[in-house]
């Protein structure tokens, strides 16, 4: 195994700048690593080495011509719901078999402009619906720390690839925790920026008012440098924010003196595994030892987060996914009558979880139920936003577990959607409020599974998250541990 695959974005950039290696070398090393571990981990759903090498050569030429940049020549793995011109974009669904993107998502275009190599499409729960990547119609991705366990989801492929060193950094999307939870399950860093920080143009929508493009990486610094490239207002997404993009790297001072860390007991009272709770509390203590203060806060409406989310997200999804009908693209099932064609295509194309959520969403928007469900959920959402308002008046960041447990076994919760939904309780609130969130490795269970610390901040204060996360990371060793993937070829 080439040592290159273990390096972070920052380290690889240093090597390429000094001439110690080229982008081609990095891509080649990754391609070899994918060949060695991916048959076991199954993080990738599409890999085009030749195309990646051509992009790497182009990046090397740009460097030779004097260009510089944090992501120049760095391979980035892309979650299967982001459009990359000329690549498939199946959203891990049978329905989008054969679809080839005619355009680049804005965040992808920005990566290209920065000279990043768009290398490989990574697995996910179908249309981002799920927390285990088991809902993929393409493959079951495994957790590199324990191949019998899930990598989390829905950005499970993104997290597993980074953890298995078969990706340097990866883009995911986070609607209710889909970046942060797999990051925690796989022991990597997961950053969900504030809603509107990164353009959603080209991100296949699950729930438009909650979706946000995020980064999965080996270090907080890598998350910061990647966000720097993809952030910013986009005229093609009217929900993207017209706010200045700060220098995220400047936040990485290692200094947290005087930073107020909020602790809300409600987040620990949701059936959190004692080992997870201990790791998270220890992480907060560690931040205190670095000079931060703990502020006890309360989050009284936490109990409404999951029910509100599982009304709003399916409602939006039921309309967002209506376009997948086989008429213009995708795996069409022919029929005499066009309406029958659409019905057959959708019947055959969508998996059970996607159907469940479409039905749920259709139901809550139906006349007669709209006020009882959808309107009420919006009220609950407003209460959660208010809770965050009160919390962030008292502290800079809120520290919570990412998920109540570490990674569960494959198949363990697949027939119990309610339990799986409840697992999102710690991550969902910030999506409902449009805030930002970060997951950093903060320990391991006795069984050797990674545990994540979640830090939450207001919408466009990713800087506080990155500062705290980086200070924690640079004084702990958790993120440096690597899984041993049994059976992988050397």
């Amino acid at each position: 195994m080439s040592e290159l695959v273990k390096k972070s974005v920052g380290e690889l950039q240093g090597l390429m700048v000094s001439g110690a290696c080229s982008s081609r070398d990095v891509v080649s090393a990754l391609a070899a690593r994918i060949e060695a571990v991916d048959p076991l981990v199954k993080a990738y759903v599409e890999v085009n080495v030749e195309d990646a090498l051509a992009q790497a050569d182009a990046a090397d030429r740009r460097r030779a011509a004097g260009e510089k940049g944090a992501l120049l020549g760095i391979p980035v793995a892309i979650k299967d719901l982001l459009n990359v011109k000329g690549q498939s974009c199946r959203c891990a669904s049978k329905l989008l078999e054969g679809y080839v993107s005619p355009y680049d998502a804005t965040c992808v275009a920005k990566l290209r402009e920065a000279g990043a190599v768009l290398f490989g499409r990574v697995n996910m729960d179908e249309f981002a619906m799920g927390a285990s990547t088991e809902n993929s119609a393409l493959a079951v991705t495994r957790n590199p720390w324990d191949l019998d366990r899930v990598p989390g989801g829905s950005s499970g492929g993104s997290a597993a690839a980074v953890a298995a060193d078969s990706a340097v950094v990866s883009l995911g999307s986070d609607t209710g925790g889909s970046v942060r939870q797999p990051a925690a399950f796989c022991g990597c860093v997961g950053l969900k920026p504030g809603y509107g920080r990164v353009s959603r143009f080209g991100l296949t929508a699950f729930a438009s008012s909650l979706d946000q493009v995020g980064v999965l990486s080996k270090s907080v610094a890598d998350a910061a440098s990647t966000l720097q490239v993809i952030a910013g207002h986009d005229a093609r997404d009217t929900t993207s924010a017209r706010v200045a993009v700060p220098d995220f790297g400047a936040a990485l001072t290692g200094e947290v003196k005087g930073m107020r860390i909020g602790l809300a007991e409600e987040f620990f009272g949701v059936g959190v595994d004692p080992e997870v709770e201990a790791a998270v509390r220890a992480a907060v203590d560690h931040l205190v030892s670095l000079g931060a203060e703990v502020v006890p806060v309360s989050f009284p409406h936490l109990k409404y987060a999951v029910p509100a989310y599982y009304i709003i997200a399916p409602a939006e999804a039921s309309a967002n996914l209506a376009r997948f009908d086989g008429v213009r693209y995708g795996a069409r099932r022919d029929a005499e009558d066009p309406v029958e064609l659409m019905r057959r295509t959708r019947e055959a194309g969508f998996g059970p979880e996607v159907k469940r959520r479409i039905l749920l969403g259709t139901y809550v928007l139906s006349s007669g139920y709209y006020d009882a469900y959808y309107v009420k959920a919006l009220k609950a959402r407003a209460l959660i936003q208010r809770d965050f308002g009160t919390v962030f008046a008292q502290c800079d960041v809120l520290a919570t577990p990412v998920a109540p447990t570490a990674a569960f076994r494959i198949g363990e919760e697949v027939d119990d959607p309610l339990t799986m939904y409840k697992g999102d309780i710690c991550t969902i609130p910030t999506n409902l409020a449009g805030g930002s969130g970060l997951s950093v490795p903060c320990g391991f269970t006795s069984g050797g599974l990674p545990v994540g610390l979640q830090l939450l901040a207001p919408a466009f204060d990713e800087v506080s998250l990155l500062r705290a996360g980086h200070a924690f990371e640079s004084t702990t060793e958790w993120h440096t541990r690597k899984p041993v993937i049994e059976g992988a070829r050397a």
Partner: protein
Amino acid sequence: MSISASKLVPTIGLETHVQLNTNTKIWCGCAVRSDAPPNTLVCPVCLGYPGSLPVLNREAVRKTVMTGLLLGCEIAQVSKHDRKSYFYPDMPKNYQITQYDQPLCLGGGIEIEVNGVKRFIRINRIHLEEDVGKSTHLRGASGIDYNRAGTPLMEIVTEPDLHNEDEAFAYLTALKRILQYGGVSDCNLEEGNIRCDINVSVAEAGADVLGVKAEIKNMNTFRGVHRALAYEVRRQIKAVGAGERLVQETRRWDDEQGVTRSMRTKEDAHDYRYFPDPDLARIRLTEAEIEGWRAELPELPAKRQARFVEEYGLSDYDAGVLVADKGIADYFEAAAGKNPKAAANWVMTEVMRVLSESDLEIGDFPVPTAGLSALIALVDKGTLNSTKAKEVFAVMLKEGGDPAKIVEARGMAQVSDTGAIEGFVNEVIDENGKVVDDYRSGKESALQFLMGQVMKKSRGKANPPMVLDLLKQKLAKP
């Protein structure tokens, strides 16, 4: 229980869909045009590709607000877009982005006149939405052209204020005139720029509750609306009069058979599951923005009519005829030149006759306004008499060209040379001794005959007032 059919009266409301004539579509930069090959004016956004997002075209908002201002609506400073869900192959996202409970414009209305009676038809609302694609059924397959998908569409909804098909026709005609004046739509019915849904029910006159309504969908001619309403009202009156219980339903107009047919009843009506579109921010308009648009409002027909009377000295009637069609009024104003009264006459006689005899639109009229002005100037200068001028106009209509050049090339100039005319006059007097005697003995009409003879000799080119003068002179002295 049956109700006396003679006591039943209809209640009618119209929902009119108007395509705005913006350069680009409502959510993307694709051009709005009807003459392009299928699926050439499309992009990921208007095809509903995964990940694409809508961005509202402000020009569509401006044109909708302009319409609202012209119709006296209240303009909402905050409005929003909603998704209306139903599966339809022509609709790329399988939901239509429309405005459900917070439209751009509320209230307002249009005055109509039917048989000399003026009535005010109230508008309930105007909202801004997107048009869908167009299906065509080929042999054994269907094709869909998405060029039209995403064309900005304004829906203008009346209160149920209309009483009969004549009023509906008058309303649509008045609405079209205002839309044309506002320049917000091309208003070409053949292109489907204006489409209409009719809501109609019948009930006993003075009843508190309306009858069971039928909706007749997708009418694309005003004449069709008139015929469909006449049929449907008769059908409902007959049914209710016979004690039949109507069901709420959607009907389709069969133009060939001249009947409406049931498409679906309320039981299988769609549940559209409206909810606010999370991809679009609320539309916020400032007072200043709205007032700025109000200042840009074009002159409406009634005001223009008064100005034509004042400024051009036209009769109220003539001015009314001219402003009835904005294109005609524009044509007249451009041609008015130094002799607006003559221009008005030309437009109301020759131009409008040609338009009514052909399927030409005034915008494509072959005689340019400058040409008509020049022709009128030739008459005023005495180069042409009115008969010859009509001949020149016919040539301009058929072959184009400058009137002065046509006159020259064809030797059509009026003879105003006293010597030449005198020659013709002398000849006629010599040849018609008896008529000359009749005139001299007091028979005034004899003069007309002699005049005609002179004109004939000049082959129509003699200047008639000069002929008349000379004849009178010569006949006065024996």
